[in-house]
Each structure stands twice: as C-alpha cells, then as structure tokens.
C-alpha cells in the first residue's frame, strides 16, 4: 500500500476503534458505577422488594416484575397481530400493496416513544378507565389478574401501549423472513392439495419459525428497554400485585423518574445497577434474535440455491 493509503487507513481505523472504545467504556462505567449496591446487597438486590431511599434499602424485585409483566402483556397482544399482518403482507398482498403497507409500517416504527406516551396518557388511559377495565372486570373478574380498583394507569395499560409500539418491528422482520422462504416450498404444498392457508401455516411459517422467533426476541428487547411511553402510563408505584390493573414500575421507568432526584451514592448507584441489569438482558436478547434471523435467512437462500 502507498503512503496515502496508510494514512487513510489509520484515520478511518481510529474512528472505527472509537466505537469499540465507547462500548467498552459504557460497560465499564455501568459496572464501576454500581459497586456500592453490588457489595452491600449482593444477590439480594434481585430478591427483595423494599425500595426505601430513606433507610437505604434497595431491592429491585418490583421493577423486574413490572418490566417482565408489561413486556409479557405486550407480546401476548403484539405477537398474533404482528405475525398475522406479516403473513398477509408476505403471502397474500400483491407486491405493490405489500410495499406500500410496509412503508407505513416503517413510518410507524419511526414514531418516537414520547409520542406514544402522549397518546397513551390522553387516549388509552381514559379508554381503559371508562370502558376496557370495567368490562374485563365484569367478564373475567374471577381471575386474580383482573381484580382490584381501576385507575386507568397500570401494568395492563403499559403493556397495551408497548404492544402498539413493538408490532411494527415484528411485522417488518417477520415479513422479510417469510419472503425469503423458497417458492418451491409453497408450490410443493399446494400441489399436494393443501389450501392456501394450509400451505402458509403448515409449511411456510414453520420454515420461517426461527426468524419469526428472532423478530419476537427483538420486540421483547425493545419492550423491556422502552422508557418514556411506559413511564407515562404505568402509574409509578413499586408494588408487586397479581392484578394487571395495579399501578407498577419498570426498571426503565424507575430510572427515568428517580435518577435526577437520587440523593446519596447508594441510591444513585442502585439505579445504575438497574441500568446494568437492563443492559445485560437486552444484550442477551438482541444477540439471540440476530442469530435466529441470520440462521433462518441463510437456510432459505441455501435451499433456493440448491
């Protein structure tokens, strides 16, 4: 290589290396920033549910619970809707319709979370309080999930808003994966006499299963880490209750609400440790998701090349 090339290589390398550096620094800082609670509480941090800044007692259980429950509710709603829509876009809609709808879905994915929060506060919350929660209470009230006072805000509301937010991710990725399923697979099923739906559900979807799982993991990672919309509708109370109507708190929402007013090192560092937990969870989920999507897409292209 010539001299100019060496210089260009070095300069671009420095920029590329800074990405790695920043990422390492981020992990280091989260680790370093949460020394106090890690030493003081150890594993009990995840097992106790008292969050009391005045007596310096910090247990993360209510937030972990809130995070998991809201994300769970979100997936229960978003997965069938998202996969259904993806099947329509990939299998049924003409290419032009599919591309147009995909364009709208992409725009939907670009809507910032604070806007979802705004609509959540002024539309979903009143709707939940006036109609949906009373209706659920009347019909399914025998389940502990749907008991207790109705506030409008709470775990269920947060889960629903989250569902609306993650549906575009599930649709986009699943559609992509479904489209990569080789044509032969569909034709083989149809030629054996299966209906359009049977070929889709029993052949195409199982073929794309890994990638669809990947899209769900991706959506789960987003739902767990989502901050603003959840903070605005979850009710912000560190309690663990079997009822989905109960207000709660997620890891991200407690950080958003309390970080600036945290007095004392232990308090602040406990919040940072929550951040570390959130980081690790999303790190693992994103890794799994990417692996699944890549493996499935490669399977598709390998088959069509054969």
């Amino acid at each position, binding site marked *: 290589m010539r001299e100019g090339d060496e210089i260009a290589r070095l300069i671009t390398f420095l920029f590329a290396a800074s990405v790695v550096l920043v990422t390492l620094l981020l992990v280091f800082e989260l680790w370093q920033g949460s020394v106090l609670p890690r030493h003081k509480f150890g594993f009990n941090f995840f097992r106790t549910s008292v969050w009391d800044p005045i007596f310096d007692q910090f247990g993360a259980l209510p937030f972990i619970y809130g995070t998991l429950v809201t994300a769970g509710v979100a997936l229960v709603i978003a997965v069938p809707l998202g996969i259904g829509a993806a099947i329509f876009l990939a299998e049924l809609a003409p290419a032009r319709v599919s591309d147009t709808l995909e364009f709208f879905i992409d725009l939907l994915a670009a809507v910032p979370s604070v*806007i979802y929060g705004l609509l959540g506060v002024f539309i979903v919350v009143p709707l939940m309080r006036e109609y949906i929660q009373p209706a659920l209470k009347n019909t399914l009230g025998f389940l502990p999930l749907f008991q207790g006072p109705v506030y409008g805000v709470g775990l269920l509301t947060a889960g629903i808003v989250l569902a609306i937010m993650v549906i575009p991710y599930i649709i986009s990725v699943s559609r992509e994966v479904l489209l990569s399923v080789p044509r032969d697979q569909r034709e083989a099923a149809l030629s054996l006499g299966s209906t359009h739906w049977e070929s889709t559900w029993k052949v195409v979807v199982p073929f794309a299963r890994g990638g669809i799982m990947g899209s769900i993991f991706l959506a789960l990672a987003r739902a767990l880490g989502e901050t603003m919309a959840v903070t605005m509708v979850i009710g912000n109370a560190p309690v663990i209750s079997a009822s989905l109507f109960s207000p709660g708190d997620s890891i991200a929402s407690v950080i958003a609400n309390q970080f600036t007013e945290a007095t004392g090192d232990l308090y602040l560092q406990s919040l940072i440790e929550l951040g570390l937990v959130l980081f690790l969870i999303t790190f693992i989920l994103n890794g799994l998701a990417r692996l699944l999507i890549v493996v499935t897409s490669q399977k598709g292209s390998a088959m069509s090349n054969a």
Partner: protein
Amino acid sequence: MSSNLRWRKFVSGFMLTMTGVCALVAVSVLFFILGYLVFHGGTSISWNFFTKLPAPVGEGGGGMANAIVGSAKLLLLASLIGVPVGFFGAIYLAEFGGGATTFVVRYAADLLNGVPSIVIGIFAYGLVVLPFKHFSTLAGGFALGLMMIPVTLRSTEEFLRGVPRALREAAMALGASKWKTVATVIVPAAYRGILTAVLLAFARVAGETAPLLFTAFGNRFWSPGWDQPTSSLPVMIFTYAIAPYEDWHRQAWAAGLVLLGLILVINIVARAILARGIAVPRS
C-alpha cells in the same frame, strides 16, 4: 369428502381474511396517531408556539421557542459526533478492514445499537455531567450522538459494500490509489445511500427523550452557550403531558405535532432519495 374440503376452504378463507384484518389494524394505528395529533395539536399551535418562552402556570399563551432552539442545538452536536464516527468507521469496515478488527467493530456497533436509550443516558451522565458538575447541552448532544453512531455506521457500510466491483477495478486500473478510489469513486457512487442512512439516524435521535432526562435536563428559559441545562421538544412533551394543567396539555399536543411532523418528513425524504437512487439504470 366434499364437506371436508368445503370446511378447509372456509378455514383458509377465514384465516387469510383475519391476517388482512391484522395488517389493517396495524397500519391504521399510524393514521390514528396522525389524525389525533393534527386534530389536537393543530388547534393548539400558533405563532406564539414558535416564538415565545414557556408561560408560567395559569398564565395562558407562551410557547416553546427555547425548546425548539434547544433541540436544534442538541441535534447539531449529535450529528457532529454521530456522522463522522459512523461515516469514517463505515469506510474502515467496508474498504480497509478485515478479519478480527472488522468483526469486533461491527459487534460493538450492534451492541451499542441495542442498548436501551435510558442506559445511554446513564452513561452520558457519568461521562459528561459528573465531571462538569451540571447538566448541559453538551451532555445531551453527546448522548444523542452516541445513539446516531451505530445506525449511521452499519447502514453506510451496507451501501458502500453495494457499490459494484467493476467501479473499484476501473479506478484502480487507471492507477488511482486506494484512498483516491474511495474518495472519488466509491463514496460518490454510494452517496444517496449514505445520505439516507444519516437522515434516518438523525430522525431516530430527534425524538429520543430518555437519554436527555438527566443529561440536557430541562430549562424554562433560554440556554446560553453549551454548558447549561437546556430544554428540548421531546422532554417538554413529557413534562407537559404528565403535568396536571390543561394549558400545558395543549402545548404538549402542539409540540407532539411539530416533532412527529419533522420526523415523518425526514423519513419520507430519506426513503425518496434512496428510491430515486435505485431507479438509476446501471449499465
């Protein structure tokens, strides 16, 4: 079994219709959001919104001029960090890298991309806010810039790799050095894609709220210079929406309309640029 077949055909038709309903529901959310924002925001928006400072509670009127300027400053800083690092980093990955380094950089970028935005806020707080001892535009811009890097980097790399091999070889055959090939042939050939990547990254961080909560913080007044807390549109929407005042809610709707309008326009422009780029015939 003709009744069996009829049943199977019925199931097929029914389920496929249901998938159509799912798609319709998903897409209609977008129009619902837009409609509601235009309806509520449109009636609350006025000239004052763009030119006045926030009014004290109870006193009607007022605007978000400081938040608009604050957001502009934050996004400028973010672009100054995110675009160069993403762009040059991508050139390294696509043109100069190879082997383990490329893998590590790409992995780090993907990791950074998946970090929840609130955690980015914690990081920027520790790195910029703590040493300076107060919230600042600088810290907020840093946090947003950090979030721009992986998006810019990965998509720019894709577009650089998409440049046909023949173009590279032609330039090299004419005796151009590697960096000259990159600077005068490859980057210009991929510029539409790169522009799209940068615009999408910009639109993504323009609406980010969580990383600003404890970096840029907020401010009821103008924020001079770069080392003072500043207000921004997304954070204003958040604080105004959860406050109990009717006046503030209207302002929040107006701010939401402005913010979403900006983000959607950038998204549409970015996609239009890319679509035109693909339509250019390759001979």
